[in-house]
């Protein structure tokens, strides 16, 4: 397989998972801020909940690295 295609594949893997993470964190982040407006003490809990979808992009990164290792 051509190296260019491998690079594009890796880029798609991490790019789309980054978008997915962003989308999920946007939803949680807005909800967390809404909750914080009611009760300041929820900041730390909101922060932790907001980083939960980071798993998605980490999977994306792992897959991207696996794809890259196909290159010659």
């Amino acid at each position: 397989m051509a190296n260019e295609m491998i690079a594009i594949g890796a880029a798609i893997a991490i790019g789309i998972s980054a978008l997915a993470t962003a989308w999920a964190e946007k939803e949680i982040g807005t909800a967390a801020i809404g909750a914080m407006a009611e009760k300041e003490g929820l900041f730390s809990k909101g922060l932790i909940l907001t980083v939960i979808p980071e798993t998605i992009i980490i999977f994306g990164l792992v897959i991207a690295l696996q794809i890259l290792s196909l290159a010659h």
Partner: protein
Amino acid sequence: MKGYENVFLVAGQIQSTEKLKEALKGFDTVAFHSEPEKGTHNVIVFGKKSDEEKILAKLNETDFSRTELKGEWEYSDVNKEMENIEKEIASVEKDLSGIKKRIGKLEETYGKKLGAIEKRLIEMVRKSEAPLNFASSDFTFIITGWVPEKNTNGLVNAVKKISKGIYIRTEPDSNGPTKLNNPKPMKPFEFFINLYTLPIPKEIDPTFLLFFTFPLFYGMMLGDIGYGLVIFIFFTILRFKLNRMKSLINITILSAVFTMVFGFFFGEFFGAEQIFGYQLHPYLHRLHEMNDLILISVIFGIVHITGGFVLGFVNELKQEGIKKAILAKMSWLLIETGGILFALDMFKVMSVNIAISAGLFFLGVIMLAFGEGFIGIVELPSLLSNILSYARLAAVGLASASLAVLVNGMANGMFQSGGLFAIMGVFILIAGHTINIMLGMLDSFLQSLRLHYVEMFTKFYHGNGTLYKPFGT
């Protein structure tokens, strides 16, 4: 301002200058108005004395409100008045700063003492109010409450000494409030437990786990001698300067030590592979041996999660008995072992008969179905995603290390151009690494915490305990 023969003046406030102009139409007047303050203009109008009554009548039809000008200013000089006023303002301001200084001094001398006194007084008030909550009849009263197990005898003895007429009974209560009890070095990490949820008394308090693995994960993600050193120095200074957030600061200092240790392991000093000319020899190069690092991370994950299941087993054993413990937690361990053996075989690390791995796996699944029911089966894939989630130990580190190398590369380019660019280079180095340290600190902190909260605690921890509040505090 009175006493003119032909001219009169009126002063006041009005909301719209348009209305003012309208009201004065047709009269021979001169009017001045200020810029609006809170929606109203200050206005002064000079007119002919003969028109005075008519003008006032017209103004009254608008929202004009008249202000009486005080004092006989007619013979004084405006500039002189201004000077006097400015002098007065200056002297008042001087007084004000003197008073502020005195307040500061008073705070320094008495502030702490007053704070302590207030605390003590509140405590006394609470203690003296407490009897109001006790059930009492004309001759007797009853008090109920909790006391930490190890203090029970002391309490009983102390109460018995007061009078012979006191009957006291103690019994263990597993639904009572929780008082965390950890050795001193682990104390700061109770902060995270308070943040999440307190354990109930018969549950394992996971503080010791955070003590062992939180700084480890943090250090592994940040992993840079220089960054660790900066954080260590900064927070050590902060520790002596600041009186609040002690536990967070202590946690960060411990994590910074681990960051330096991993820095040696990865051979990184501010992203470079040398310390002022001394070459570092990485045992594992984060940028080039990423796959190995991910593998190590996942192994950390397997160990961590297995630990979680073992603790879960102990918890269930204490709360629900051996049968539930084996069905609900041992089953997960079997599934995990089966999966790992299968993976080892698949990646040709060691050959394992598929019958063994599949057997362990399905035995676990069946046990789980009995132990946790349908929900347990639905949760199955989460085991894989939880373990793979530990790849963030490598991934977050990769991002931080790449950024550091990028900053160094940009600065290096500037240095080679020489002259003014070299100064720019220094600026880029300082700004770049400062941003990277701050990002790295936040990210490593959150991700490490999250690995505990989400990936590990869910395996054994339920919490929902209430805080033990000693009498009168």
